[in-house]
């Protein structure tokens, strides 16, 4: 059950179309006032900046490693966070790895958001056979838990960046479709939509307005909750050897290759996981804040 946007006066279309902006302004205002959201947002900005600027700020070359300096502990001079099993600087690879992890984490959710919204709204709006076709197909994919589906598809396609993106997108699209369809159906059933239809004025402007507030909203919030899962899954796939391939720097892959070294130097292998954890948590806090600000329960 989603709470709808603040009620607005029925009137001509222009007034209605004018209304959404103040809704989003309200959301923004609420976001600004929540300290947790601010902190999470700041953390994410930091992480994103670090990832984007990695080529500039990284102290070393991510591929360059001296075998003799393998698994240097945290705090070694010139290798602040130690070195990995091939002697490559951890700080550098964490920075570079962020790009890969963020890419593989965010892209599928974005694809899911776009494709899922389109499919879901279509299914909800048109109804009938189209709806059945789309929703039942989504159900089939939805029957598989995210992890299983991602691994099964990845396992079939093989490792590699593109295959990972495809696999994860296939995981997220059905979920977004469900949320979008459900919200669209609810909007469609609103009384004043029926009234507008009865009176003969166009349904589309009304639909458009409500779609923005009442469908996009829940979908956006839902998608934001999936980012953390996507990041964990993407890293997880690389961890299993199914995602990004060596010698690329990616947090999940680093966890995998460093795993063998926990008996030699326990804490360097833990670092990529810390990175995944912090990023994931920041996204979760942000999506919480978004949800509270939009007063949506998904």
């Amino acid at each position, binding site marked *: 059950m989603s709470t709808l946007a603040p009620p607005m006066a029925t009137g001509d279309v222009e007034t209605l179309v004018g209304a959404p902006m103040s809704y989003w302004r309200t959301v923004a205002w609420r976001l600004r006032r929540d300290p947790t959201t601010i902190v999470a947002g700041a953390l994410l900005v930091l992480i994103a900046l670090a990832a984007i600027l990695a080529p500039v700020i990284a102290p070393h070359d991510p591929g360059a*490693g001296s*075998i*003799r300096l393998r*698994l240097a502990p945290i705090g070694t001079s010139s290798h602040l966070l130690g070195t990995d099993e*091939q002697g490559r600087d951890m700080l550098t690879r964490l920075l570079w790895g962020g790009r890969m992890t963020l890419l593989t984490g965010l892209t599928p959710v974005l694809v899911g958001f776009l494709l899922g919204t389109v499919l879901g709204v279509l299914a909800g709006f048109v109804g009938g056979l189209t709806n059945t076709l789309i929703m039942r197909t989504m159900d089939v994919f939805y029957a598989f838990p995210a992890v299983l589906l991602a691994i099964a598809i990845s396992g079939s396609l*093989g490792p590699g960046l593109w295959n990972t993106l495809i696999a994860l997108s296939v995981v997220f699209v059905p979920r977004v479709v469900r949320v979008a369809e459900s919200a669209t159906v609810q909007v469609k059933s609103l009384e004043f939509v029926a009234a507008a239809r009865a009176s003969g004025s166009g349904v589309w402007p009304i639909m458009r307005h409500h779609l923005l507030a009442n469908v996009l909203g829940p979908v956006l919030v839902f998608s934001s909750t999936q980012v953390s899962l996507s990041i964990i899954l993407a890293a997880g796939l690389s961890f299993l050897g199914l995602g990004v391939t*060596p010698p690329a720097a990616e947090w999940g892959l680093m966890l995998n290759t460093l795993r*063998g*070294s926990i008996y030699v130097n326990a804490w360097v292998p833990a670092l990529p996981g810390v990175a995944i954890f912090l990023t994931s948590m920041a996204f979760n806090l942000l999506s919480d804040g978004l949800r509270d600000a939009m007063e949506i329960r998904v």
Partner: protein
Amino acid sequence: MRRLETVVASLFALLAFAGPAGAQGTLRIGMTASDIPYSGGQPDNGFEGFRFVGYQIYEPLIAWDLTRSDRPAALVPGLAESWEVRKADPTKWVFKLRRNVKFHDGSPFTADAVVFTWESIKKKDAPHFDTYGSAQVIPRLASLKAMKKLDDHTVEIETNTPTSFVPYQVCYMMIVSPVQWQKFKDWRKFADQPSGTGPFRLTKLVPRERLELEAFKEYWNPSRRPKVDKAIFLPMPEPTTRLAALRSGQVDWIEVPPPDAIPQLKAAGFQIVMNTYPHNWTHTLRLDKEPWNNKLVRKAANYAIDRVGICKSLLNDTCAPASGITYKGHPWYGTPKETYEYNPTKAKELLRQAGFDGASKRPVKAVHLISTSGSGQMLPLPMNELVQKNLKEVGIDIDLQPVEWNALTQRFRVGFTGENAGMNAWNISFNFQEPWSAFGRFFHSKSVVPASLNTMPYINPEVDKLLDEAAQAFDIGRQNEILAKLHEIVVDDAPWIFIVHDLNPRAMSARVKGFVPPQSWFVDLTSVSVGK
């Protein structure tokens, strides 16, 4: 409430401090295989299958002598007491079988068992044909054509063409008990309750989890009756898992500990056991395309590798530098002209002679396919990165393309065609236990893919001639001489970048005694005992 707390506390105490006890005389081994090797006769999982299942439960007619460390394992009588080729018709060999040998099920070992086993591998329409086992072992029995019973204790083996390599093939055929098979008439069921003549018998098999063997009290050779009562094998494909299992006392012996952990294992009182054995870690080069079609360039590459560096700094001395296919001390080593020690100056000089300038003019460029893991592949990624670095230092630029191990072996089998058309080499490890696996399958012109594994392709009529000669040399001394000469030629041709020989490191608890690491892929577990 009080009682609950006590129960919880004592439960926790129990959990925290109770440990799994190793029964007296039980040997527990952590293998690198990810599953229990096939126990129905002809093992799978490569040589680890032979090592822990095949040669423990079963025996071939001719066996490996695994009791000595100081020289490569040689062939000795197994279930056959003696064998000899017929002078009149060298395609026929007469094997005299050992008497008074019993299978685990009690039935006697006779020529019938040999013929039965042969048919299970070769006779497709026989009710006892083992599709799976046959697929595993057939590549190793290429020259054998037929086996015939002459009487209860004599068998005649016929080959396609006369070849002296027969013993080297016969040693891979495990003899199974026909009587036991007839009880089930199904190889899967037989695999769960197999019967061979080996020093151990199978008592329990949990797929993918556990194999339990017990000493076979009526084993025919009293000097090889096992000292332990039980041997348990656990598949542990992850090196960290094996390490954890050894350190926590869950197993007594692990194959291939992570090299990084060796110093701390030694410090904690574990034994690290190694020996040279017939293993090669190399880059097999493509000889019909630039840059490796130029012999000088190939030699240059071989002089550019700091093998000692790889072994010392990366692998904690668990490997030895390789300067050929076999190693010094091996009867097939000979005295090759090129010694391929680490000499970047010489490498650069050779490249200059070949017309490659490295710096501005023509640098050498190549694409090499490597794997990310795999049995026998050691630590492919770090090792290859070192190799890449070494080569770059002399002006050879190789681009490494890692693929998953299974993918690599599949692609390797089809050679440098199709999707591999752009590749210049592959990094796969090989064994060289017998002349075929050392030389025949790679360097004979008849072995060009897809017939066998000559992917390069290496065509040298002189080598062909020597290989054919060796196959006709029925005297082992003469055979070794020819093979040594062959080796010298191949080393000079440098169709591979020879890098290292693995030393098959094993880690075991101090309680494990009596193990003799042979120069072989296989082991003899009968001399091992586990103290308190």
